[in-house]
C-alpha cells in the first residue's frame, strides 16, 4: 500500500488555502499519526486519500494511480475514512446494517460480509449490540460503530480522524488494540490526533502540519526530541516527555519505565 502526495494544494470555495503545496509518501505498514493544531490542514489532507476532497493542484497517487481516475465510492474499497463525528456517518436503523452497508455496496460476497462483520464487531466491542439502533448507543459505542463499519469494508488503508475525542481510559485502550490488530493484518493505519499519549503509544511515524505545510516528519522520538521546533505548531509533547526534558534528561522518553531508566543512566554518567 502506497499513498503519494505530490505538491498538493487545496483551496476551499471560500478562498481559504488549506494546503499549500505538500509532498509526502506514506507506505508500508508503519502506522502514521498526523498532528497539528485546529486549522493546520490535517482533515483536509486526509480527505484527499480517498477522494472525498479533490486537489486544487498537485496530485495524490494511490498505489501509483491518480486519485482523479476514480470516484470516492470506488476508492473507499482501498482507503477507508472514519469521520470525526459519528453523527456524520451513521444513518441506518441497526448496528448490523451499518456494518454490512459498505461491503454490500461494493459487491462483497455474503459469506465474506458475515465474516467481516463478525471480526469488526468483536474487535470494536459491538458483538452484543448488533441489533441495536445506532441512536440508542452511547457516544463511545457510536464511535466504535463508525470504526467497525469501515473495517468491514476490508480496505488496505484506514484513516481515523480524531478517534480519541471524548473517549475514556477503556475506550482509548480498545482503540490501541484495534490499531495494533489492523497493523498485524498488514493494514496501513493513519490517524489524526490531539492526544499525544495515544500517538506515541501506537504510531511509528509522526507528521506535524502547520498552516497547510509539513514542518516535521519522522519517528516519534525524532519529532518530540525537538521541543522548540514542535512548539511552533502549538503541539506539546506528552507529559512524561515534558518532565524528562524539564529535568534535563538527554533521552526522549514516552513511558514511565523509559523515564526511570534515563534517570539512572544520567545519574551513572554524573557519578563518573
Amino acid at each position, binding site marked *: 500500500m502506497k499513498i503519494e502526495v505530490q505538491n498538493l494544494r487545496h483551496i476551499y470555495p471560500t478562498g481559504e488555502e488549506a494546503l499549500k503545496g505538500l509532498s509526502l509518501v506514506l507506505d508500508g505498514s508503519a502506522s502514521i499519526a498526523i498532528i497539528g493544531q485546529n486549522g493546520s490542514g490535517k482533515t483536509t489532507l486526509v480527505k484527499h486519500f480517498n477522494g472525498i476532497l479533490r486537489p486544487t493542484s498537485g496530485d495524490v497517487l494511490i498505489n501509483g494511480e491518480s486519485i482523479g481516475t476514480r470516484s470516492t465510492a470506488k476508492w473507499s474499497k482501498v482507503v477507508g475514512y472514519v469521520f470525526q463525528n459519528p453523527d456524520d456517518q451513521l444513518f441506518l436503523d441497526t448496528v448490523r446494517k451499518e456494518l454490512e452497508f459498505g461491503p454490500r455496496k461494493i459487491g462483497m460476497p455474503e459469506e465474506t460480509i458475515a465474516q467481516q462483520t463478525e471480526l469488526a464487531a468483536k474487535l470494536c466491542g459491538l458483538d452484543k449490540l448488533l441489533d441495536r439502533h445506532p441512536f440508542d448507543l452511547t457516544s463511545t459505542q457510536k464511535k466504535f460503530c463508525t470504526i467497525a463499519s469501515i473495517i468491514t469494508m476490508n480496505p488496505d488503508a484506514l484513516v481515523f480522524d480524531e478517534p480519541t475525542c471524548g473517549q*475514556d481510559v*477503556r*475506550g482509548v485502550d480498545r482503540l490501541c488494540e484495534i490499531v495494533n490488530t489492523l497493523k498485524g493484518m498488514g493494514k496501513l493505519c493513519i490517524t489524526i490526533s*490531539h492526544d499525544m499519549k495515544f500517538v506515541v503509544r501506537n504510531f511509528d511515524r509522526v507528521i506535524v502540519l502547520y498552516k497547510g505545510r509539513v514542518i516535521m516528519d519522522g519517528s516519534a522520538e525524532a519529532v518530540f526530541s525537538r521541543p522548540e521546533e514542535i512548539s511552533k505548531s502549538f503541539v506539546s509533547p506528552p507529559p512524561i516527555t515534558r*518532565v524528562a526534558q524539564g*529535568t534535563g534528561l538527554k533521552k526522549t522518553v514516552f513511558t514511565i519505565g523509559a523515564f526511570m531508566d534515563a534517570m539512572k543512566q544520567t545519574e551513572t554518567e554524573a557519578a563518573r
Partner: protein
Amino acid sequence: MNKQLEVSNLSFRYSDTKQKAIADINFTVDEGEFFCIIGQNESGKSTLCSALVGLVPFYFTGKMKGDVVVLGENTRKSSVATLASKIGFVFQNPFNQLSYTTVSVAEELAYGLGNLGIEREEMHRRVERIAGLMRVDHLLNKSPLELSGGQVQRVAIGSAFIMQPKILVLDECTTQLDPLGSEEVFDVVKALNGEGITVIMADHDMERVARCADHILVLDGGKQVAVGTPAEIFSDPSIRQHSIEPPDFVTIGRRLREEGLYSGDITLTEEAAITAAKGALVR
C-alpha cells in the same frame, strides 16, 4: 467556608431506563471552590451535572430521590428561571446550548439577558466584555450556525458566563477544541474562579484536574466512589479500579519514591514532577 451547594442522597432513574443513572450521591461545594467530577463515560457525570441545575428532573424526566440545594433553593421547589440566575450550565455538546432563534453571535450571547429583562446598555456592555474574554469578538455579526465546533463551544460558554451566575457547572466543555484552544477556554474558567465564581466541572483531563481542583468527586457506574482533594484521590492506588488513570506527574513522583529517590509530597503538577526528578539527580 460558606456552603453554596448541597447534594443529599441523590438518585435518579430516567423514565425510559431500568437502571439508575446515579445513586446515593452526597457532597457539598463551598463558595469559590473549583470542584471536579471525574469518571469514565456513562458513569453518571452528565446526569449529575444536569441535576445540579434542575434540568433533572424537570427537563430530563424520571424518578428522582434525595435533594439538591443551590444557594438555599431546593431545585424541586424552585423554578428554572430562579435557578438560572444563580447557577449557569454549559452543555457537553455546545450545539445543544444554542437557542437556534438568533441571527448573530451578539444576539446569541445576549439571549439569556433578554429573557431576564436586563437593560439594553448593560446588555451591550456585557456582550462586549464576554466576547473579548471568549475571543469571539470578531464573530459578533456572524450567524451562530456558520461557526466551527470550537467557536460554537466558546459562544456556548460565553452565553452561560454572561448571566453572571454565582456557580457555573461545565460538562466536559472543551471536547470540540484542540489542546491550545482547550487551554485558552480553561484559562478563562480559571480566571472566573479567581474572581470568586464557584466552578463545578466534569472533565477527562486528569493532568488539568490534578492541577486545578480543590476537591474531586469520582463516579463509577452511577455511584460515588470517592470524594477528596487531588492529593487524596490520586495517591490512592485503588482509583485505577474505577478506570481512572492518575496524571503521569503523580506516577513519576510515586516511582521515584519507590526507588528511594524522592521523599516529598505527591507530585500533582509538571513543575512538581520536574523538581522531584531534579532533586533525585543531585542527591
